[in-house]
């Protein structure tokens, strides 16, 4: 599939970046025998958009859906913050790249995450710190959609919206969770509206359209934003396993590792041919 046929929107540069990142992510998960690839592919575009053009030096990012660590590591790899050697150690012995993000070796990973419902409260605290210190910048936090079954997220949203801290919440809304769809498990089909009910502006966008994501992340905090920015929500509608036909919207790819044939097919579809 070439850039013109990609069909995902965005410029050619982003398409090249995405293909490169997808291939590296697939290879990393294949070589390490690690699952969770579906939820990594669903949010990879969001992470690439964030790390290539949205996040500035005064900003910080917390990956609350820590099971997408692979996508975060690959996004940092595309920036040169992690090396190929680092990625080869993913999920191995004596590695810095554990299956969920571990802190302490890169400022881009300020907190260990993996237990759901922690990232947004942490981001709210960092954003409050910026507000109290009158510092520029904004904290970005990516949650899953199923993660909104955790009560701590609602605690954090109440807190952050009330205090109008400079925080952008991104939701990777792929509609699938560990053992069913978010609608089947928790009736969360209206999550975007539920978030908006807290009085924060919600941009409901195609999470695989990089321009839409970029616009949503950069949008002014109208109509309810505070002078210092306030909370914004980017509700990114995505597909689990995006970019690999046999994974798309399939719950089992929350768990399964790739066998060799699957990996080769996935790599072909991701646009890189046999890897």
């Amino acid at each position, binding site marked *: 599939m070439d850039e013109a046929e990609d069909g995902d929107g965005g410029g050619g540069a982003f398409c090249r970046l995405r293909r490169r990142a997808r291939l590296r992510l697939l290879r990393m998960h294949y070589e390490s025998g690690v699952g969770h690839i579906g939820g990594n592919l669903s949010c990879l575009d969001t992470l690439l958009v964030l790390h290539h053009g949205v996040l500035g030096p005064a900003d910080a990012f917390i990956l609350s859906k820590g099971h997408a660590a692979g996508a975060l590591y690959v996004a940092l790899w595309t920036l040169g913050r992690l090396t190929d050697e680092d990625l080869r150690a993913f999920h191995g012995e004596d590695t810095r790249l554990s299956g969920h993000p571990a802190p302490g070796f890169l400022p881009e990973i300020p907190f*260990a995450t993996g237990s759901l419902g922690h990232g947004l409260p942490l981001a709210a605290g960092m954003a409050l710190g910026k507000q109290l210190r009158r510092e520029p910048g904004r904290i970005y936090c990516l949650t899953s959609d199923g993660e909104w079954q955790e009560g701590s997220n609602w605690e954090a949203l109440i*807190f952050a919206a009330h205090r109008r801290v400079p925080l952008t919440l991104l939701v990777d809304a792929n509609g699938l969770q560990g053992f069913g769809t978010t609608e089947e498990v928790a009736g969360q089909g209206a999550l975007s509206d539920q978030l908006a009910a807290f009085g924060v502006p919600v941009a409901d966008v195609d999470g695989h359209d990089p321009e839409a994501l970029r616009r949503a992340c950069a949008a002014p905090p109208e109509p309810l934003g505070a002078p210092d920015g306030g909370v914004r929500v980017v509700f990114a509608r995505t597909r689990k396993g995006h970019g690999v036909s046999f994974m798309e919207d399939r719950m089992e790819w929350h768990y399964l590792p790739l066998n060799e044939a699957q990996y080769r097919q996935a790599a072909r579809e991701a646009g890189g041919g046999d890897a």
Partner: protein
Amino acid sequence: MRDALCAGLVALAAADPAFVFLTGDLGYKALEPLREALGERFVNAGVAEQNMVSVAAGLARTGLRPWAYSIAPFLYARPYEQIRNDVCIHDLPVVLAGNGGGYAYGVMGSTHHALEDYGALLCLPNLRAHVPAFAEDVGPLVRRLAASEHPAYLRLGRSETPANWAPPPYAPWRRLLRGGGGGAPTVAAAGPLVGGLLSALGNAPDASPRPDVWAVCELPVEAGDIPDAFLEDLDASGHLFVVEEHAAQGGLGQMLAHRLLAAGRAPARFTHRHALGYPSGRYGSQAFHRRECGLDAAGLAAELAAAATSAAGT
């Protein structure tokens, strides 16, 4: 102790612009002066303890020095995973200040008691627990904790400083009473009940053997923490008597016994009086619950006297 905490923190507010105070919607008629002193750095985080602890971790990550405050059980049990994952694993300088250690909330009921707080928290990495014995300890502890680079838990209670008596200057281990030998045990006590015990011992007949009484205010008990003078007292008495308003599991008694065994200094006798939960299934004041556990001051004084008599007769 809450008033002493407020006074200490008001002083800290003036001294440290990085100090931020979070409360889980508590502090009515107690923390208003601190709210005045801190302005926007006084944050009522609402009835949401999980979020409050994670927010504190986030604040600490930006270089601020947060304290998070609530009733002790709401502070350590509800947000335990946030304390573990967000604060302790990252070794962030967050102070968790819990009011009402042990049975201090009395007849308010079991949900408001903190009987396993420091034992549970001390399983976590990097955290130390501080259990002031007297209101007079709180000011020095505030300064000590404000300078710490690690997670800390401060367990507050109701001070029982004996009348007309001033505690010695704060230290993690302090001998409060020098015994007269005679077979009396060596007491190691955590928390404010030691004040009541001192009063009860002071009211005992002069002829009664007096135990050595130590207050232990910082946990865990690490190798090297135990003062030589305590070990000398223990060698002389041969009987370690630990009292604490905390469950046996993970408490001072177990920690101290572990360290003494490891050091080859195990005493011949060991008595541990600790919280037992709710043995009768009934509720009452802090004094009621202490009596049910053998932790009331008069009962402890009598037991110590009996132990001394028993030792003297052997």
